[in-house]
């Protein structure tokens, strides 16, 4: 276990450094935040003075060196737009995104797995045909377009759910959560569903493929030869074998949900990290962009680690030679 942990950490630091360099070069190439944020009245002298004050006239690698020095002390620079430490802003927006991602994942698992099981066990039945057609649809619907339709239909015409925003939150050990309030849940349902749609079809198809692969196995034939009831065979023997690959995919996909929330947050005005990064890119707020990337990288390392651990716990065949690495 330790081995894959260390290997992942080394890999992550490499990614971190590479990412920050790319963003630094990129952001400097396309523009200068001073041009965008400066007041219309300020004259040329003011502009050059500000550029010097922010050190933006330094050669790129000096700026990068300054940044790294700061980063090592936990200061990822201050946002040009919010005038607050970039790290703090991101962490303020993180719970909203995490909450949405978890809700979407739970929803996709709660819907995807039962449907996948049913489709796998009853391949020829009519409901299965509908489920599979639905999954193709779920796969193909572009997230942003669906988001619009959801708002239009459920919020505006039917008025069942609020159209945007996050609703009231309850602060639990210092972090505001909205899923603890009824209003928060109502706000979260549509965006979470929008995010979950793609993942549900993915999990559904994975579960179905898993079931179809496990059913003809000879240990299932032996289980039937042992006289076990269908229900027990599915619940005990089939389910655990099917869930192992599904769990790993859900883990890995959790990361991409967080990334994809960029689109959903923009449409549903959900104050998460996704919306923040899009706005920061528009105004070239580089400290926030870099801080966002670093947090995403850290988040991904954690996710991959959790998936590794989960995988070894679930599948005994992996656990025993964990020392030998994969």
């Amino acid at each position: 276990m330790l081995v894959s942990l260390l290997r992942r950490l080394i890999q992550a630091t490499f990614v971190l450094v590479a990412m920050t360099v790319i963003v630094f070069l990129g952001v400097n190439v396309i523009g200068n935040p001073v041009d965008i944020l400066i007041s219309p009245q300020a004259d040329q002298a003011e502009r050059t003075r500000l550029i010097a004050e922010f050190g933006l006239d330094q050669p790129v690698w000096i700026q990068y060196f300054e940044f790294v020095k700061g980063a090592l002390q936990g200061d990822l620079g201050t946002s040009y737009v919010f005038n607050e430490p970039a790290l703090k802003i991101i962490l303020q927006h993180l719970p909203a995104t995490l909450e949405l991602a978890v809700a979407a994942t739970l929803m996709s698992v709660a819907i995807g797995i039962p449907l996948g099981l049913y489709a796998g066990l009853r391949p020829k039945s009519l409901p299965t045909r509908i489920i599979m057609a639905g999954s193709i649809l779920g796969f193909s619907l572009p997230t942003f377009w669906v988001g619009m339709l959801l708002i239009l239909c459920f919020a505006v015409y039917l008025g069942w759910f609020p159209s945007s925003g996050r609703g009231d939150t309850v602060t639990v050990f210092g972090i505001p959560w909205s899923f603890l309030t009824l209003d928060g849940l109502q706000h979260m349902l549509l965006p979470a569903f929008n995010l979950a749609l793609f993942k549900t079809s993915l999990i559904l198809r994975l579960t179905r493929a898993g079931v179809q692969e496990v059913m003809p196995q000879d240990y299932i034939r032996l289980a039937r030869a042992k006289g076990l009831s269908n229900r027990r065979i599915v619940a005990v023997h089939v389910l655990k074998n099917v869930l192992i690959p599904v769990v790993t995919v859900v883990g890995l996909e959790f990361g991409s949900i967080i990334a994809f929330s960029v689109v959903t947050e923009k449409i549903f005005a959900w104050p998460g990290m996704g919306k923040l990064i899009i706005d920061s890119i528009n105004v070239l707020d580089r400290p926030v962009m870099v801080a966002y990337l670093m947090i995403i990288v850290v988040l991904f390392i954690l996710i991959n680690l959790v998936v590794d651990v989960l995988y070894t716990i679930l599948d005994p065949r992996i656990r025993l030679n964990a020392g030998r690495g994969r």
Partner: protein
Amino acid sequence: MSGTQSHNPLVTSAAKVEASPLAHAFHQFARSRLALFGLALLLLIVCAAIFAPWLTPQNPYDLMQLDILDGMLPPGEASMSQGFIFRLGSDEQGRDIYSAILYGLRISLIVGVISALTAAIVGSVLGLLAAYVGGRTESTIMRLVDLQLSFPTILVALMILATLGKGITNVVLALVIVEWATFARAARGTALVETRREYVEAADCMGLPMRSILFRHLLPNCIPPLIVIVTVQIAKAISLEATLSFLGVGVPVTEPSLGLLIANGYQFMFAGKYWLSVFPGIALLATIASINLVGDRLRDVFNPRGA
């Protein structure tokens, strides 16, 4: 010589099965009606995109033909000056949505197909090399793949486009950078299985050069699973391009792809002018769904493990 033949009759009667594996594959593909429907729809869409100039009353990218007075007309209205009917309504520039969809389809398909194919070629070659050569090269390539896949596609594309700026070539480049890893991993996976099979070892024993083993033996057998992944990736590329355009970092605004059409129409969605977004959305959905249908059936026919 003839001696051996006469006294064992069992030997010469070969079983009668379809001819080449390709004919065999298509026969199996055609057995699902859903897949055929998907294929037909896809062909229809591709033809519509190719023959767009002849099918559409207006070239939406030529500003000369747009008349602002024709702006925001609902479906079925006639154009003020140019005398044709806006079958699916017009946008605020007076651009006919029906024509814009067909031209937009063209861009979406081009972006999707080119990026998927380039990524396929780059990825597969690297994957095959990794599998066949193994050792140091394999671990470096696969570390790179893991690195790439551990990052969500949309974020990487976003960062690339934010730094390189807009334009179709940049979008394609971003998509290729994001997609090649999936192909590399799939190609390596299948190639590893194939290299262990005896016909590759037999070729090795015969002293055939590596080049011919790789391209005459290994590649043809790795093609089927890759075909499935190409179809799925094309659908993903089109969807991703549309999302990027929606976020405002995709194709330039004067030549809107389907994604941008939807994005432009988005503001009018709540104003009851549904047609600006709904019709391009349906076109985009039809394209992606048909490709997925075909891809899905191909997977059942070749049933590779892959992505």
